[in-house]
């Protein structure tokens, strides 16, 4: 798997398949990127499960917070890691110990750990690194285009509305890749940004 760039259909396939997402390292601070992403994905219909030992037992946006992945009483489709890359292997090991196993390990924008990726892929899981699912949902649905962002998608098909709410678009948009830029894979935040 080439983790320097991903085809749109790979990302869209993941975001279309997963229903429950455990977000490890989510913050209750409303100005943190993890809080944004959690809230956004919740509003787009994902079953969001907050994981943060410091907030365990509390509620975040109406969802019960767990200390660790093993404490979650329901199956998890995707584990979204909002921790610095040095924590990635331990979290992947925890994810692989779950039964049933999650299908996807996602490392946030700025986070990449190739050993953690190999570990997950060796067990048949899909891996995405150095991307944000909120940004990817916004890009593939075209919502992020309202911010002037190059979605790197083209289409002559009508975009689809999410179905409820104002200014919400559905992920199931028929597109051809418009990625005439490699700028998107020049994403270059410091690795240990610590979300």
């Amino acid at each position, binding site marked *: 798997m080439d983790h320097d760039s991903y085809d749109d*259909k790979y990302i869209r396939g993941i975001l279309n398949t997963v229903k429950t997402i455990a977000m490890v390292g989510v913050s209750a601070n409303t100005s943190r*990127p993890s809080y944004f992403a959690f809230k956004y994905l919740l509003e787009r219909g994902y079953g969001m499960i907050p994981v943060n030992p410091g907030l365990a037992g509390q509620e975040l946006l109406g969802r019960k917070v767990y200390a660790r992945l093993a404490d979650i009483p329901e199956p998890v489709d995707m584990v979204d890691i909002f921790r610095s890359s040095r924590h990635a292997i331990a979290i992947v090991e925890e994810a692989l110990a779950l039964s049933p196993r999650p299908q996807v390990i996602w490392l946030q924008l700025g986070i990449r750990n190739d050993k953690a990726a190999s570990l997950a892929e060796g067990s048949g899981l899909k891996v995405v690194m150095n991307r944000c699912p909120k940004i990817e949902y916004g890009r593939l649905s075209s919502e992020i*285009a309202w*911010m002037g962002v190059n979605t790197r998608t083209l289409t002559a098909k009508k975009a689809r509305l999410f179905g409820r709410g*104002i200014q919400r678009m559905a992920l199931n948009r028929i597109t051809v890749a418009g990625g005439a830029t490699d*700028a998107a894979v020049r994403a270059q935040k410091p690795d240990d940004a610590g979300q």
Partner: protein
Amino acid sequence: MSDRLPGFATLAIHAGAQPDPTTGARATPIYQTTSFVFEDVDHAASLFGLQTFGNIYTRIGNPTNAVLEERVAALEGGTAGLAVGSGHAAQVVAMHCLMQPGDEFVAAKKLYGGSINQFNHAFKNFGWNVVWAEPDDIGTFERAVSARTKAIFIESIANPGGVITDIEAIGKIAKNAGVPLIVDNTLATPYLCKPIDYGADIVVHSLTKFLGGHGNSIGGLIVDGGTFNWSREKRYPMLCEPRPEYHGIVLHETFGNFAFAIACRVLALRDIGPALSPFNAFLILTGTETLPLRMQRHCDNALAVAQWLVERREVAWVSYPGLPGDRYHNLAKKYVPKGAGACFTFGLKGGYDAGVRLVSNVKLFSHLANIGDTRSLIIHPASTTHRQLTDAQKIQAGAGPDVVRLSIGLEDKDDIIADLEQGLAAA
């Protein structure tokens, strides 16, 4: 199997645009509205807090403008764009996100005269200090960089045409200095040159010129190349420090490789205010669809006119890098191989009076101060745009008494040449 990537002409028509999700309208609708309703207070809070994507108020963003932003960002190979009210506004907005009072930026001496004025006067008033360097002597850029330098600014093809800047060489200096390279790509457009490929981090445009292309709308645009590591440099508080305007958000960690475009929108455009009208965005967007066709014709016509002028006995010199033997011809072959643009200058042996007579006698050329129109345009800088300068200053600015500037349009080239021929005969 990798996704197939579309070509430039396809992007020029499709990037950013899609059939309207509710009406099915195929052309981009003109969302001529000041404001957008919120679903509820929580939705409003999410929008104002940058927690979700969407529209609030046309000073900050508008769906018609957004199509134009993505279009130009895609054509330039950048991560995001921001449309503003003019090319000058693009420069103020971009610099606002980089500069603090007392900071410096290095700029090429060979720039559009309006930018020289903006940098020397308006920017100095903000405490943003320009340090001039000579694009024909790359070492002057290196020597101009100091501990307070926050950016380097150049034009790819320098207005009024005839000068090609060595973007790659200056890009290396910017990289060594740890500052972003800003390239004004107005005269080249991404059809002729994509500065991000040569090390530019930020591209700015006057959309008024070739991107709009029809002389009907003023506009400007900033493209974020997505290439600069704002967090590593730690010298750009708008990008890498918690912003009090947004409850402590750090834009680079939140938005990654399009953080600069977001900073321009939510910190500069929001607070300074030079928004683009959606109607202008629509007109300019229509222009961008034919950009590759128009630019090629502009260049082909300009080369034909330059070749014809070289042979005329009334003409002392022609400065067009598309001509073999021109001092910038080799740089043109590297940076603008499809053509050296539509704008150039030439000198009349008859001096000031001959220049005045030529602009008075032409009948197809329009005598005005713009460039980048479908129509061919002519101006005699010494008697108009540079009139207030001394003769020495005029020569320094490339606007000596004998200089005539042309912006070659899309008419039949034989008609353009015939008009110059009768104009020169009468001069």
